[in-house]
């Protein structure tokens, strides 16, 4: 029999998160700090709207790009948070989560041999999606001494005349790092100079703790070269509804829409109705969740300080990224032993790229009580390790 598989897909490595997941799943009483989704339920008024949508029989396809009212609300949201104007009719597509939007963007823009700059550590899907689209991924290793922020210099070091897209994953999963306006202006300058497009994954944009998130699309001259990706999962605790969106110049969006049309048809209809309610009346929910995350973030940072575990102050998303280099183990060894010995699951930094080596992703999408117990266990664990090291 012939080999049924595509060489290209076989060559893509499975997600590093997955491997760890199987170990955790076998432990029944483990505390997990490993999730990448909010612990909050979707706010009731949003779920209620979903129920109404079912009752009213909104169970058919929507137009490929999404419900008109939803696209209008998305544009209003981006205008009120970022001051950028998009045309709902030609510059928005509603997708099955932000992850579909990432895939669409690459496939719409990449020709074989094009290079894509991917800063790491970052979300696990950029590289595989870029490869599947035929691109050559070029990794930028973000540096701990810069608090894992991307700098214009780092782009210049890796840019070639084949570089077409820069992935900009901020606020960042797994580090929680954010970029401010001045950082973005420098990056924008390079993008314009080198004629790069930016895939700006702003899925955590609503979750920043020291100043509001700034989108690179709001910088002069950048809207026309930015694919802005966002969604409802993290902002409104709606992961399971599978709803995201992309905003892009209409020439790019038209091609993305074509792929979406053939591969997906449209995003889930009921989710789209619920999302309209989220955008119209959900600002208060965001504020409430953000306050809560911020308190937990402070709690963890203080706990690390008290146990002398170095960690920069992350200002976005719901992750902290402490450094465990002093223990002389790889992130994976550390996470595995921590899980086995104290039954607390964290994710090794290397699941998000080689430059995550020596770090641990800890999610604070958990109740304070859970975090407290986990930090007591972490302290016990590292105290034991430190004794051995001496």
């Amino acid at each position, binding site marked *: 029999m012939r080999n049924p598989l595509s060489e290209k897909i076989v060559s893509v490595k499975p997600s590093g*998160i997955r491997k*760890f*997941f199987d170990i*955790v*799943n076998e432990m029944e009483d*483990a505390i*997990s700090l*490993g*999730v*990448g*989704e909010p*612990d909050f339920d979707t706010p009731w008024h949003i779920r209620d709207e979903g129920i109404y949508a079912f009752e009213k029989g909104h169970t058919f396809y929507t137009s490929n790009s999404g419900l008109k009212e939803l696209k209008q609300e998305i544009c209003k949201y981006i205008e009120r948070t970022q001051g950028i104007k998009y045309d709902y009719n030609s510059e928005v597509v509603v997708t099955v989560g932000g992850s579909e939007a990432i895939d669409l963007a690459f496939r719409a823009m990449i020709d074989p041999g094009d290079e894509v700059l991917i800063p790491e550590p970052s979300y696990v899907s950029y590289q595989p999606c870029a490869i599947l689209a035929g691109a050559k991924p070029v990794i930028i290793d973000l540096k701990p001494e810069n608090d894992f922020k991307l700098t214009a210099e780092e782009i210049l070091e890796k840019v070639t005349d084949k570089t077409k897209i820069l992935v900009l994953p901020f606020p960042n999963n797994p580090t929680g790092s954010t970029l401010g306006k001045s950082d973005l202006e420098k990056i924008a300058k390079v993008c314009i100079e080198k004629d790069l497009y930016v895939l700006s994954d702003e899925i955590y944009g609503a979750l920043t703790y020291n100043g509001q998130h700034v989108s690179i699309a709001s910088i002069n001259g950048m809207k026309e070269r930015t694919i802005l990706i966002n969604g409802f999962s993290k902002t409104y605790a709606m992961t399971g509804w599978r709803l995201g969106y992309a905003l892009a110049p209409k020439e790019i969006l038209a091609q993305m829409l074509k792929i979406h049309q053939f591969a997906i048809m449209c995003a889930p209809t009921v989710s789209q109705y619920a999302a309209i309610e989220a955008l119209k009346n959900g600002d208060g929910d965001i504020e409430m969740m953000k*306050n809560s995350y911020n*308190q*937990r973030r*402070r*709690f963890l940072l*203080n706990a690390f300080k008290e146990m002398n575990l170095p960690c920069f102050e992350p200002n976005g998303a719901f992750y902290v990224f402490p450094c465990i280099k002093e223990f002389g183990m790889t992130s994976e060894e550390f996470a595995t032993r921590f899980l086995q010995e104290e039954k607390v*699951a964290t*994710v090794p930094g290397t699941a998000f790229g080689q430059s995550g080596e020596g770090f641990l992703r800890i999610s604070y999408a958990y109740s*304070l009580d859970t975090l407290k117990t986990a930090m007591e266990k972490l302290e016990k664990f590292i105290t034991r390790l430190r004794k051995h090291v001496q």
Partner: protein
Amino acid sequence: MREEILSVIAKNSKINLKDLAVLLNKNEVDIANEIADMEKEGVICGYHTLIDWEKTSVEKVSALIEVRVTPQRGQGFDSIAERIYNYPEVNSLFLISGGFDLLVTLEGKTLKEVSYFVSDKLATLDTVLSTSTHFILKKYKQEGLIIAKPKKDEREAIS
């Protein structure tokens, strides 16, 4: 700072000062002073524990009583309210707009005890025109907390 402190301790009055200081990124002493001030000013009136008595062996009967009264000249509802709220079995008392005047919530050990209070104490007050008693059969949610159904974390352990 007040609102921030209140928003946390409204949900968790057990939190210690050190944790509270960390969560709010404030100085411990400042928080302690602010809380003391709020206690003095009566902003913070007390610290209660929310108990699901159903899960204990203690028998309790709760009732809501709608009371219609004749307000008194120069006193309005206040003096009649005072006569009612001084009974220790009265849990809370509200002046209400709409079809009746006062809403009394009551906790007693037995049905008999509650009935006795209503018929003997409450209904016989001069200014009380009528009462209507509703017994609580099940508590689903109280003080913003759902007590009827424990929540389970359905998320995948790692994602």
